[in-house]
């Protein structure tokens, strides 16, 4: 049967067809849908682990028990999971283990643009890279086959364009689950103390050699010889772009990007006159091919940064300096993403900015508050970083920083990697204030469960962590719980906690406005009374999408130039603007 699938849906389907019934992940764009889709198949176990490191460890455990296990994460998630990944490369996987790394060239929704193909070489783990959904489904199967055959973890690398593009996929009958689980004792192989790791280290190099032979005949490394004047070596989505604009050139399309098939590449090089290596981000293929002594053209002309498209490839190769231009020459007002109407974060940041503090941010919807006019936070590095950074800044500033350093972090992010840094704050005692923005879900990636929601990925009721008890057990004595849409209470809680010695935590608790399970149905829309509105624009400072300001429609005798309006179609009725209006004009 033919169906239309995204790369992510196809990876989930392919794993299921390969007989995989075990998977773990932490959500992250562009990888999230893989586990959501996988969890819907009959007879599978799939979990949201609190973070990517845990997810990989969970799948290693399952693989050691004989399962074919799948771990999924976005590119930066691999950083979090790098520790177990580098050493499971030594121990091998017994059952099978495939790690999906979803990279994000162009940083559509990420904090960096790292090229995770480097992890394959760094950790000596083979890596496959599909170019569309059809290949994604096939390659995940091949990845499991390689893992089983060579007793190695295998990476499957996708990018945003593969993950979120749809194409036609032919479904196959799923392989029957072969439940071969049990205990395999082999301490020399699985206990990585130096003496054992030294000998496994040698096994890794033997495996590398075996894989180098294997890749020479790997059928997804495909040579297409047509025009012998120009050859293109490429992999993944850029193959499609190049093929689109230069259908007549010769191609070597690499389905496996690590290790490389040296003989095949030499063979290709002997058949064509000039070779371009077309790859997004790092010169990963190019440098290895150049090290073989083969002359190729790569990053001398192609960009290092951002994703490619057919136009970029054509313009670079044809040396077109002028791209296509729009006939419309005026500048168009941008549409930056914004916090939703009714978002509880808006209330918290509006209250927080009154205190003139330095706010360390973290990864989540709330990061969007950094923009004008809220300007709610002043740094953001990675998942869980806000707490450690707030602690470090507070320690460095000593008295100067007292009452002035804040870290904000979401509930899912706190449980991902904030707990240890909060423990550190209690242990090493700094004065910073940490605010946990507890909206009871992982909102940014689309409402995924986590240990604080009370449900699992499979929809079962689960133990729900009690944040207050957890934080108190870490050694934090000052803990307050507030509703961030209550401005008065929020402001006074912030003021009180900033004044205290030692670390404090405020839990700002209110479910995400889009979270259906939490009964966050919108209340009736608020209205601006045009007779009372003085046009002072204070409500615009909330940057709430339904609130606008129109020139000219002022009440008689007013000095103001215009008044505010609320679009009743999108107002959530949260009441925040009503609280900030000094003239009682909103109700």
């Amino acid at each position, binding site marked *: 049967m*033919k169906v*239309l699938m995204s790369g992510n849906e196809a990876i989930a389907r392919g794993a299921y067809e390969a007989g995989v019934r075990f998977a773990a992940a932490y959500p992250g*764009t*562009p990888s999230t849908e893989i586990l959501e889709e996988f969890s819907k198949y009959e007879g599978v176990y799939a979990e949201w682990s609190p973070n990517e490191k845990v997810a990989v460890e969970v799948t290693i455990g399952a693989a050691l028990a004989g399962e074919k296990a799948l771990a999924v994460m976005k590119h930066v998630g691999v950083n979090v999971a790098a520790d177990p990944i580098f050493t499971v490369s030594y121990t091998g996987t017994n059952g099978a283990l495939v790690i999906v790394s979803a990279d994000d060239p162009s940083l*559509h*929704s990420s904090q960096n643009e790292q090229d995770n193909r480097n992890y394959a070489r760094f950790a000596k783990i083979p890596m496959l890279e599909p170019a*569309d959904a059809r290949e994604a489904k096939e390659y995940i199967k091949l990845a499991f086959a390689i893992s089983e055959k060579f007793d190695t973890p295998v990476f499957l690398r996708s990018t*945003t*364009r593969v993950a*979120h*593009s*749809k*194409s*036609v996929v032919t479904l196959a009958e799923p392989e029957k689950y072969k439940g071969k689980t049990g205990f395999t004792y082999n301490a020399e192989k699985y206990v990585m103390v130096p003496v054992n790791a030294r000998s496994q280290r040698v096994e890794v190099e033997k495996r590398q050699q075996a894989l180098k032979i294997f890749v020479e005949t790997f059928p997804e490394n495909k040579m297409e010889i047509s025009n012998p004047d120009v050859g293109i070596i490429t992999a993944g989505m850029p*193959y*499609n*772009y190049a*093929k*689109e*604009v230069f259908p007549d050139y010769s191609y070597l399309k690499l389905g496996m990007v690590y290790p490389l098939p040296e003989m095949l590449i030499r063979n290709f090089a002997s058949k064509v006159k000039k070779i371009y290596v077309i790859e997004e981000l790092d010169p990963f293929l190019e440098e290895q091919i150049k090290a073989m002594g083969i002359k190729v053209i790569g990053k001398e002309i192609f960009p290092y940064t951002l994703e490619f*498209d*057919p*136009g970029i490839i*054509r313009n670079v190769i044809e040396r077109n300096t002028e*791209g*296509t*231009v*729009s*006939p*419309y020459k*005026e500048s*168009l*007002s*941008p*549409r*930056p*993403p*914004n*916090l*939703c109407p009714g978002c509880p974060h808006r209330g918290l940041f509006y209250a927080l900015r009154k205190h003139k503090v330095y706010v360390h941010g973290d990864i989540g*919807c709330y990061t*969007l508050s950094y923009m004008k006019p809220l300007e709610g936070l002043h740094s953001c590095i990675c998942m869980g970083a806000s707490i450690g950074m707030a602690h470090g800044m507070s320690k460095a500033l000593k008295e100067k920083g007292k009452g002035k350093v804040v870290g904000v972090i979401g509930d899912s992010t706190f449980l991902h990697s904030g707990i240890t840094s909060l423990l550190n704050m209690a242990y090493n005692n700094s004065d910073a204030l940490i605010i946990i923005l507890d909206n009871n879900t992982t909102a*940014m*990636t*689309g409402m995924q469960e986590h240990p604080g929601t009370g449900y699992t990925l499979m929809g079962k009721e689960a133990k729900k962590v009690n944040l207050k008890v957890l934080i108190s057990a870490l050694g934090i004595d000052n803990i307050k719980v507030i509703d961030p849409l209550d401005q008065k209470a929020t402001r006074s809680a912030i003021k009180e906690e900033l004044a205290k010695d030692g670390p404090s935590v405020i839990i700002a608790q209110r479910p995400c406005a889009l979270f259906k399970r939490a009964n966050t149905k919108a209340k009736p829309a608020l209205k601006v009374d045009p007779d009372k509105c003085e046009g002072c624009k204070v409500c*615009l400072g909330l*940057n709430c*999408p339904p*609130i*606008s*300001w*129109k*020139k000219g429609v002022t009440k008689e005798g007013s000095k103001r130039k*215009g008044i505010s309006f609320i679009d009743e179609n999108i107002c959530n009725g949260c009441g925040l603007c009503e609280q900030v209006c000094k003239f009682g004009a909103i109700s």
Partner: protein
Amino acid sequence: MVDNEVKSILFAGVGGQGILRASDIICEAIMEAGLDVKKSEVHGMAQRGGCVTSHVRYGKKVYSPLAEPGSIQTLISFEKMEALRYLKFLRKDAAIIVNTEEIYPPAVNMGNAPYPEDVVSFLKKHYGKVISFNAVELAQKAGNMKTANVVLLGAVSNLMNIDQSIWQSVIKKSFPDKLVKMNLAAFQMGIDA
């Protein structure tokens, strides 16, 4: 259709307008019609009120899910000014379907920037075929403003060579039973617009 010709449609608008659903439906219809199809979009931050685009490409064999600038034959803009944002992607003889509904970007809401004037006449001056109407008003007539995306699909179906029976069956498959009648009505509104 010429043998190797790949056609491209660009959907553009603002988060929450049902653009991704509409481009899914069109892809299903193209697939049912026996052609190869690929589409590309970027999720994530776009869901928070930002610009949303979706490229749909179809033909006998499609490689790239993204169209090359200057190559797109059809633009469906779900919001009026958004049509202007992507003109560099269009061929000079492109057809443009534009919903005249206005959704203000933040700077316009704040009174700090103007909303572009005379969008439709600008488009008409530069492109051969421009079809403009308020899809939200038509959607309301069909029963719910949320069906505006299906109204726009109806309009684009006039420009494509796909049987009505295929569109009907894909729309039936795409919505829960109780919403099918309303969406079919919305689709017809678009055909007649």
